[in-house]
């Protein structure tokens, strides 16, 4: 069971804080705060209005809030995101709609 990710179905709306340590897939709606120590997937039907702290994140749906991840944040072509993102790796696929700030570590050559 530990391998199958927990799913919040498309009929579910959560208002409040959501936290956990296992993989999570959101197809429904979450308003509040998400704190996860694992991989979070927001499906096409997912609508998130929340600050998200997670290990890694894949967005296909809609997110509004701030995102902080320890590893990769990936916005797919279907994603629509208004957020500030802070993560070492951020991927914006062609077609992804995004507004906000992206913070990665940028190593600039000396003298620039």
């Amino acid at each position, binding site marked *: 069971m530990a391998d199958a990710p927990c799913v919040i179905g498309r009929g579910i709306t959560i208002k409040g804080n959501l936290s956990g340590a296992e993989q999570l897939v959101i197809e429904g709606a979450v308003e509040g705060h998400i704190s996860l120590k694992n991989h979070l997937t927001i499906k096409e039907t997912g609508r998130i209005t929340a600050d998200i702290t997670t290990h890694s994140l894949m967005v296909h749906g809609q997110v509004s809030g701030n995102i902080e991840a320890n590893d990769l944040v990936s916005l797919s072509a279907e994603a629509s995101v208004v957020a500030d993102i802070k993560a070492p790796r951020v991927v*914006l696929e062609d077609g992804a709609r995004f*507004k906000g700030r*992206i913070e990665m570590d940028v*190593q600039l050559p000396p003298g620039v």
Partner: protein
Amino acid sequence: MATARTPTTSSDGATIIGESVHIRGQLNGGEDLHVLGRVEGRVDLERTLVVAQSGIVKAEVSVKNAVISGVVVGNIHASESVEITREGRMVGDIFSPRIIIVDGASFRGNVDMGDIANMPARKPSAERPRPTPVARPAAPVAPARPAVTAKPGAKPALAPAAKAPEKPAERAPEKAPEKAPEPTRPATVTPLEPPAAKGLPQKAQKTRVIVKRK
């Protein structure tokens, strides 16, 4: 890399700023600009800015398209698209309706695609800007392309061979005609492919290969 020197590429309207060249000031133009060296100040182009891996642009940039494989410090306004490739590094704000950030790229700044709420979902297969292929290291893309074209031909030959061990030998030729129509189907598709594949990102080409395998 060697292609960058060919006179054909420079005569068809691309400006190249070589690796040791440093430009400080304002640069305007109506053609593609490939920066292998360093440009500081302002860049206004009606076409595509390509910052090669060795290139450094420290400027306010206003262009149609930008492809960044080097370093950019400054803000970019692009009327069409901005792509930061795997080697690209950028600090600054991006204003463009279409922005692509590839894994491996690093970026710090604001992103503004305009009114994203009313933006229609775009097909990821839409054509990517491809400037004149002057300083583009074609190496990572090149191997994928022959593979795509080779597939339709290679497939019928491979499939019966794979089946042969588990079935009686004479079944193999039986299978072969069954598979035979298949190469004709990709063959009709193939002529359409080069123009599309040319503008496609590497990733899309990979998926193309997978589709054929099915």
